[in-house]
């Protein structure tokens, strides 16, 4: 009986496994509590506001400018929004403010003058405060500072809770008092919602700004260590040697750019003809039954996560290419650019084909008719009339595909290497911009080594190049669409 039970419900435990504990920023209790308070007060505010409006109307709702729920929303907004704003401002300012207070308490001798060391000291204090030891015995002054930090932090959090709750209650009562029959509650609520909608549509802009700022900020720091020209035109990429002093000579990104280019070219050689021909076949030849099979095939290919393609490239494609190459007497690296490029090409086929499909379908039927009417065959019509007419759109599609290939990470991270070889040989191992970024950064970086910062230099180049490609491509495609609309 018992043995059967164990045989079935077996669960292995893994004490032998290392627990890889990652420093946790304790979620402050007070913030959660304040959020709860605000939420409760908002709901309460809604019902109070609505109830009061109903009471004022005294059964004749038509005497109200707005229906009671709007009065409810009106009060709820006043209860929630100011307190939430306070919370947001507080949370974003608290850390720096407390830190500057703590640093002011430290003996002046301990405070370093250069920026990097200062950052390091701050990190130490924060880690100590969070109870994470870096293994070294801390300086007693720093330990005191960490203690002070914790105290101030507790005080600040309590203040926040008190102030926030007070603000919410005040907002609620004041707003409730304003309720009268002629209060334009609906207009006020709608105005607030309108602001919210505008804010939401600004998130996309803020994201772009955030990307640009974070890339620029770190990249500029990098370029103070490694001159831009050395980075853009240097032929040797070897961040490991950077520690041994030769910072300038170790960050020449040309091999990375050429590696990216090589893999992109291979991918395009696969994806463009196959994607384009698939689109042509589907839109000009295929019977509906064929199309109803082929279209899902391409859609599934498009939906497969890139990490799966990466696994496929490393597990299946690379060995096949190496075996074939060896059989032909060629020397093939086990992480050849060819394997990664071909699989990336396969991944991009559906992208090219769906964009080209749109573009080809935008070519007016009248042009095809004109060609058929002269006695051209289908392929002549496609090659000589349809494709040339669709050329701008196809060029746009290919540019988008190139941008896709340049920015693709997982396939190359899993199937291409890290070796920054300056070569045009598709059978050799090369590395790409995205591989370098993904291999260097694991979320736990100190932002002061040139190796870490170099990644932002690469990221900036990647962002700019893909952005230019996208902007031009979208323009071209849009112009093309307008031409045949």
């Amino acid at each position, binding site marked *: 009986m018992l043995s059967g039970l164990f045989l079935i419900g077996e669960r292995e435990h893994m004490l032998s496994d290392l627990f890889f504990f990652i420093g946790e920023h304790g979620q402050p209790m007070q913030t959660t509590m304040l959020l709860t308070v605000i939420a409760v007060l908002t709901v309460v505010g809604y019902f109070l506001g609505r109830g009061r409006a109903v009471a004022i109307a005294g059964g004749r709702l038509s005497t109200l400018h707005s229906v009671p729920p709007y009065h409810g929303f009106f009060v709820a907004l006043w209860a929630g929004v100011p307190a939430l704003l306070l919370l947001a401002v507080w949370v974003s300012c608290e850390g720096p403010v407390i830190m500057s207070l703590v640093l002011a308490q430290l003996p002046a001798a301990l405070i370093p003058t250069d920026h990097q060391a200062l950052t390091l000291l701050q990190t130490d204090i924060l880690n100590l405060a969070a109870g994470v030891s870096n293994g070294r015995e801390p300086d007693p002054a720093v330990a005191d500072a960490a203690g002070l930090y914790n105290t101030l932090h507790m005080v600040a959090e309590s203040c926040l809770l008190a102030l926030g709750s007070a603000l919410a209650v005040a907002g609620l009562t004041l707003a409730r008092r304003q309720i009268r029959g002629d209060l334009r509650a609906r207009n006020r609520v709608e105005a607030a919602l309108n602001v919210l909608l505008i804010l939401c549509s600004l998130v996309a802009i803020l994201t772009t700004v955030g990307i640009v700022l974070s890339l620029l900020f770190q990249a500029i720091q990098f370029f103070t260590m490694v001159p831009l020209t050395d980075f853009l035109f240097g032929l040797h990429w070897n961040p490991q040697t950077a520690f041994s002093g030769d910072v300038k000579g170790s960050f020449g990104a040309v091999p990375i750019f050429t590696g990216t280019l090589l893999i992109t070219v291979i991918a395009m050689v696969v994806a463009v003809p196959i994607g384009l021909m698939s689109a042509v076949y589907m839109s000009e030849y295929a019977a509906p039954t064929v199309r109803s099979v082929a279209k899902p095939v391409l859609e599934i290919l498009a939906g497969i996560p890139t990490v799966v393609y990466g696994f496929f490239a490393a597990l299946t494609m690379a060995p096949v290419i190496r075996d074939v190459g060896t059989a032909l007497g060629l020397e093939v690296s086990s992480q050849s650019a060819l394997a990664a490029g071909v699989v990336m090409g396969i991944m991009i086929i559906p992208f090219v084909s769906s964009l080209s499909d749109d573009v080809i379908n935008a070519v007016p039927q009248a042009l*095809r008719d*004109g060609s058929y009417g002269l*006695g051209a065959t289908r392929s002549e019509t496609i090659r000589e*009339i349809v494709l040339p007419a669709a050329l701008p759109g196809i060029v746009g599609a290919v540019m988008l595909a190139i941008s896709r290939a340049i920015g693709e990470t997982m396939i190359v991270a899993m199937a291409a290497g890290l070796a920054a070889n300056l070569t045009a040989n598709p059978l050799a191992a090369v590395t790409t911009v995205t591989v370098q970024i993904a291999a260097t950064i694991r979320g736990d970086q100190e932002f002061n080594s040139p190796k870490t910062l170099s990644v932002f230099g690469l990221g900036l180049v990647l962002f700019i190049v893909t952005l230019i490609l996208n902007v031009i491509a979208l323009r071209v495609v849009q112009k093309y669409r307008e031409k045949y609309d």
Partner: protein
Amino acid sequence: MRLDNIQMSVANRQGPAVRAIPSVNNKITARDVNVYYATKRALKDINLDIEENRVTALIGPSGCGKSTFLRCLNRMNDTIDICRIEGQIQLDSVDIYAKAIDTVQLRARVGMVFQKPNPFPKSIYDNIAYGPRIHGLAQRGAEMDEVVRSSLERAGLWGEVKDRLKEPGTGLSGGQQQRLCIARAIAVSPEVILMDEPCSALDPIATAHIEELIDELRASYTIVIVTHNMQQAARVSQKTAFFHLGEMVECNDTEEIFTNPRDERTQGYITGRYG
């Protein structure tokens, strides 16, 4: 009122031209032609003869099947998946829907000009050279230049474009574009030219140009023209066929149709009672 107008234009025409053409060979004969779009029957038992070296006009209200019939004559309807054709159409007494017939060859012999000018997005020169090139009618170079020149000349466009042959055909005016399309059709030396409302997108002056051109082309081509405009039918054609709701109601000499219609539907249409 309108009938008067038409009769006027028939009368004003340089009449003897019609009789100057001796041939009354039937270039195309259609027998019991039925066309279906999916299940919808667009043409019903059409019987019609197209005479050689004459202009035949197809008239009738919108949607009555004129274009459908025209597109049957060079099998352009083959490009529409849902379209099905029954009956027999002969070109020079050979069934064009027979298995042995090749649409490429057929369409080279029976050319087409469309309602909306549709120049290819290529240079004027390449627009004309396209047909001869794919059919291997002329070698690149001097021979092709000559074909392009003569085609443009016959379409009355040479003078206007001879200095800008390398410019895109889409840059021409509407009327010029349509003459370019006619030149393009002429360049492959077809025997029959089908024109589907070739002037409906053009202004009156451009229309007059095209009508003149059609009259000239009649000498060496058999022309079938669909038109909405009855004055035009009266001006350019020698024979007219009236279509109504997928049926061919009446076909006769143009003069006859406009002066003395047999069927009251024809009469109703040309007097403007409907359509």
